């Protein structure tokens, strides 16, 4: 049986969301395939790594017993030896437990994981892993870089500017004036590389803009300021695959009145409020219309734009592309791309005819295919350089 390590948690604002993704949408269904042996690898908020079967139980985190677990549990060593091996000291007489890993399933969200850092580690180990690779993850996580890529592919994005916290601290007033010259209110202010909707504000006055930039720079040194799309319909398209792409349903999240998807409505408000409104379903991340209630031409265009973006960024395995639609002008703008959608967006896949179990199984398969393809390419050369030296 193949051994899959599921890595989750990490130093991220979405640490808790990652636990839910890993435990409910990845580990459980992977176990249900009965094809793999699953090792749970948890990265704490402080950045320590743990590896234990106990980490598969959600109640460990809910009860707060994770604290006492971490005090006692040995930390993990990673052994890079033609692949990846987990090592920890076992409880018996200082002997070490080893586990060779066949495939890694990264299930982290946001910083220090989904942003490509973890993928870099796995590339170095030359172990197959699920989802987007290092460059695509890094591009996807940066709202500015991904917009640049979109533009180069001829995909429209809302008008935007970006700034660094240092420059803002130095010449704040100047920057505000410049922003107000090039962009029109209402504006959205976002930390450029955070992933979740934390730190995002919608502003209409310069006073609010200043405060919003201050809030955004609290989370990231790079901040993006963009114009709001009028007549807005937000949609999101999960896509599965490497070269061959399979989109799920176009989904329309239902956001609170002012249009920003707040972290707490996105993740915390499950089960509250409107039950079965016509066509409205509760997904893993709040409420949404599934499929989106938009005209066919916009629906098709959304899928087209999403696929184009997925390819342009070089995603693999899975990703979710968020789009902004101007319903009057019939324009589809690229908003952002999420390399690891919360809970894999299993609710959407399920509605598209892919069960959670099939989904994770397919992802592992895609990871292995990508890896074996990569093995064909030569990366080392024997030279006589050293001898000549």
């Amino acid at each position, binding site marked *: 049986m193949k051994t899959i390590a599921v890595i989750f948690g990490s130093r991220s604002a979405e640490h808790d969301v990652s636990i839910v993704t890993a435990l409910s949408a990845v580990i459980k269904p992977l176990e249900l395939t009965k094809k793999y042996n699953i090792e749970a690898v948890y990265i704490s908020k402080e950045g320590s790594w743990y590896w234990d079967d106990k980490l598969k139980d959600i109640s460990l985190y809910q009860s*707060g017993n994770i604290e006492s677990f971490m005090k006692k549990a040995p930390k993990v060593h990673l052994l890079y030896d033609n692949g990846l091996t987990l090592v920890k000291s076992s409880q018996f007489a200082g002997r070490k437990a080893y586990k060779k890993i066949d495939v890694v399933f990264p299930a982290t969200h946001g910083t220090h994981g989904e942003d490509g850092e973890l993928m870099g580690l796995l590339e170095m180990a030359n172990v197959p892993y699920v989802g987007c690779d290092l460059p695509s993850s890094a591009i996807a996580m940066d709202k500015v870089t991904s917009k640049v890529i979109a533009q180069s592919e001829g995909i429209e994005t809302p008008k935007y500017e970006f700034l660094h916290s240092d420059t803002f601290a130095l010449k704040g007033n100047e920057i505000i004036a410049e922003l107000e010259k090039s962009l029109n209110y209402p504006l959205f202010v976002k930390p450029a590389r955070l992933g979740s909707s934390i730190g995002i*504000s919608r502003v209409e006055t310069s006073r609010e803009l200043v*405060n*919003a930039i201050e809030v955004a720079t609290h989370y990231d040194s790079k901040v993006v300021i963009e114009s709001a799309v009028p007549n807005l319909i937000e949609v999101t398209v999960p896509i599965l695959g490497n070269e061959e792409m399979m989109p799920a349903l176009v989904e329309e999240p239902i956001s609170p*009145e002012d249009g*920003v998807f707040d972290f707490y409505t996105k993740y915390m408000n499950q089960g509250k409020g409107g039950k079965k409104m016509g066509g409205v379903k509760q997904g893993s991340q709040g409420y949404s219309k599934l499929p989106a209630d938009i005209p066919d031409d916009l629906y098709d265009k959304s899928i087209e734009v999403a696929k184009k973006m997925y390819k342009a960024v070089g995603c693999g395995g899975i990703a979710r592309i968020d789009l902004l639609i101007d319903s009057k002008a019939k324009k589809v703008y690229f908003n952002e791309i999420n390399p690891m959608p919360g809970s894999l967006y299993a609710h959407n896949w399920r509605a598209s005819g892919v069960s959670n179990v099939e989904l994770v199984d397919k992802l592992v398969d895609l990871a292995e295919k990508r890896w074996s393809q990569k093995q064909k390419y030569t990366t080392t050369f024997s030279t006589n350089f050293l001898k000549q030296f």
Partner: protein
Amino acid sequence: MTLKNCIVDGLSIKYEVLGDSKETILMLHGWADSHKTFTPLVGLKDRYCLILVDLPGFGSSETPKEAWGLKEYSKFVADFLTKIGRKDVYAVIGHSNGGAIASYGLANNILFAKKLVLISSSGVRDQEKNKKKLLKVLTKTGKLATAWLPQETKSKLRNKLYENAGSDMLAAPNLQESFKKIVSHDIQEEVKKINQKTLILYGQEDKATPPSYGKVFEQNITNSSLEVLPGAGHFVHQELPNEVYSKISEFMESK
């Protein structure tokens, strides 16, 4: 409704501003609670501008990096008000620990207001001393005595012990140090310096902060009046929303 966001003392803080009057009422929630606790009182927004804030460590605000006591919390409140440009407050309403923060801040001229409402306020500690001692002993010996039990039974048992010791510690495990700091701070003497007109509300059945604390506050705050509401516990404003609401709005209107 999305909360407003700002950065105070390096922490991301979420808050809500309701109503557009010039007279501002600041509302401070209790330990392990959030601004939402005051939902039954938001009717006051027709007459006043209400500021409801999630204190650091609670609701959707960030947690302070070191242990905070009443001093740090009340200083934070002052900074927060400055940040959002509402330094001048007409009244402060504090529930439980929020009451202790408000009292401490006003008594030490960290906060400024014309009126104060204390709902089931904490801050009187001497009667808790025994409990606290018990708690300390339990946390230390509890671990030893229960070491041989299976994990589930252990945590159940421990929760029960804490419960009996009246600890709120479990409710916010990441704030244990702040909690210890706060519960060891008695403000009985300090509140004598409060000269604001003060309304003190307690629930007759309150076990966490019994009405006897209210008596202490009433005796020590010159211009204060205590009302003990029968049939209510620690969350008086939620259990008897109409009564608490009318008592507070009457108090706000009074000269």
